[in-house]
């Protein structure tokens, strides 16, 4: 045991100094590699990667702060008391909550985790998670501006987002009635399986000085500590997702998409794939979608607007860090099929 701990300690020390050395040597490493032929790709990758992170950072932080607040301060009894009783009423209410919580998809995943941990029915949590990045005042206003005040597009986006959210919420809520959807084993603590213990390895009622056994109301200090740990948990998935998206944007040419623009089926698939790969913020995606109008079928633009905020590379990685693998797979398949059918339906009616 002692030997094992020593080895782990040594490994830690090696990695620690290696990372610091790389960090301080980075400007010189940069000077060397930027002479290579592929330097332009690295530079482009770096700019896109960091800009996605800078754009998402405030909202992920907000998400982890709110999630920690829910975890530490919101009593499950109070929360469950306020939830609507009926199945569909609950799903519908959850899907419309975005009107009061204008946050986008980066913040919503950690918040949803906090809610599920508190015992909010899974179906409602899923409907909430999927709908909020679309049905919220900021996103709908930007859609309105992007499409030159076309109320039809705004309404269609909101209605389709609502339908997909409650459909997938209903499906997953029923499917996971008696199963636990969250990742139970956290990076911080591989020995403890019960998620109620905050999954970060520290027990509640322990204050910052480490004196155990003095149970008292969690302080602001405690809230910040919890936020820091949650941000560590979520942040690495955000970075991995942003990295994948930036890599796709650096390597894969987008030109081929234009060739299938008028095909009823392929155009929907192509723009959904684009929305997945780009990982745009839902506050900005309407402006990008606008540039496809005319070149792409109406249904494909609608699918882009509905699918993008619900699922993209960044969100998939965030979800995988929060929920179990099979759960994320089912969620992804359901959302994809729902958005695809709506896009095809719109194309059938020549919207």
């Amino acid at each position, binding site marked *: 045991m002692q030997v094992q701990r020593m080895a782990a300690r040594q490994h830690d020390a090696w990695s620690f100094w290696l990372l610091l050395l790389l960090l301080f040597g980075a400007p010189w490493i940069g000077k060397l590699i930027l002479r290579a032929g592929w330097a332009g790709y690295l530079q482009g990758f770096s*700019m896109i990667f960091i800009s996605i992170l*800078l*754009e998402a950072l405030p909202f992920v932080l907000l998400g982890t702060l709110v999630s920690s607040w829910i975890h530490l301060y919101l009593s499950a009894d109070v929360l469950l008391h306020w939830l609507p009783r009926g199945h569909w009423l609950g799903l519908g209410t959850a899907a419309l909550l975005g009107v009061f919580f204008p946050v986008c998809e980066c913040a919503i995943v950690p918040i949803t985790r906090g809610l599920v941990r508190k015992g909010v029915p899974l179906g409602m949590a899923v409907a909430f998670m999927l709908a909020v990045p679309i049905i919220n005042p900021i996103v709908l206003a930007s859609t309105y501006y992007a499409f*030159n005040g076309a109320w039809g597009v705004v309404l269609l986006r909101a209605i389709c987002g609502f339908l997909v959210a409650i459909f997938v919420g209903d499906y997953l809520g029923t499917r996971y009635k008696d199963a636990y959807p969250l990742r139970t084993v956290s990076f911080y603590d591989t020995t403890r399986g019960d998620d109620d213990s905050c999954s970060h390895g520290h027990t509640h009622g322990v204050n910052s000085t480490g004196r155990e056994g003095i149970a008292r109301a969690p302080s602001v200090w405690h809230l910040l500590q919890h936020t820091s740990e949650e941000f560590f948990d979520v942040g690495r998935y955000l970075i991995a997702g942003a*990295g994948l998206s930036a890599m796709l944007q*650096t390597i894969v040419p987008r030109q081929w998409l234009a060739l299938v623009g008028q095909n009823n089926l392929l155009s929907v698939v192509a723009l959904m794939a684009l929305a997945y790969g780009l990982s745009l913020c839902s506050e900005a995606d309407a402006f990008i979608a*606008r540039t496809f109008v005319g070149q792409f079928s109406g249904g494909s633009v609608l699918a882009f607007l509905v699918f993008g905020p619900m699922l993209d590379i960044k969100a998939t990685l965030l979800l995988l860090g929060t929920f179990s693998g099979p759960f994320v797979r089912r969620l992804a398949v359901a959302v994809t099929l729902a958005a695809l059918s709506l896009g095809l339906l719109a194309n059938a009616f020549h919207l």
Partner: protein
Amino acid sequence: MGLLRRLSLGAMLWSIFLSLTVIGISYLSVSRKLVLFLHPHSWWALAPATALLSLLSIVSWRGLHSRHGHNPVGWSHALFFLPLLLALSCPPQMLSPEVISKRGPFGVLPGHALSRSKTHAPLPVFAEGQPIVVNDENFLALMEALWENTDSYIGRSLQMLGFVYEDPSLGATDFVLARLIMTCCAADAEVAGLLCRSPEKSQLTPGQWVTVSGTLDKMPYYNAAMREVVEMPYLQVTEIVPAEKPAQEYIYP
């Protein structure tokens, strides 16, 4: 080393990451290099985020001695340091030509700037016989006007600063004099610009900044997406002057 032995190295790396991120974001905002990553209208969110990050870094510095929650150094830490490493080794600049060329020809085709110019500056009026001078403020409005009323601009002379963008669908003497439009962040930057025709094209390199003067005209252009031939405004170039890149490289609608 005695002190280090008692501290959690993972926790220490975490607080170093948080502090460096705060320093990095502050440096980018003060030096205004942040405009290369983010549209100025989305900067506001970074202020509270940076404040919160500083608080978190203080909290995690104080938590270094805590015995519970051993935080081993692992891939997660490397992942967090990746953006910092990249930021330090690749100085911030506009997207490279190699990457811009992957972003598709959408912006060059009709319908690229439409909605934005409505919330942007009004279309400037240039007197008959006077050259049209394109600048950062009127770029979107003018490009849209050129697409919508191509005929009324034929024969007018125009001057514009932009970078050279090449597309395989264009002829041997054609290139696009382009600007990048940032809606929210560099990840959504799109190419928009004016098609130019010049025998001197072979002397230009993609990404090079030039000031181009010439006369506006139109030509048939096959739009692969629509599978139809459209009327495309273009500039018959009379003069190409190499230029310094502008202080503001992106256009922010």
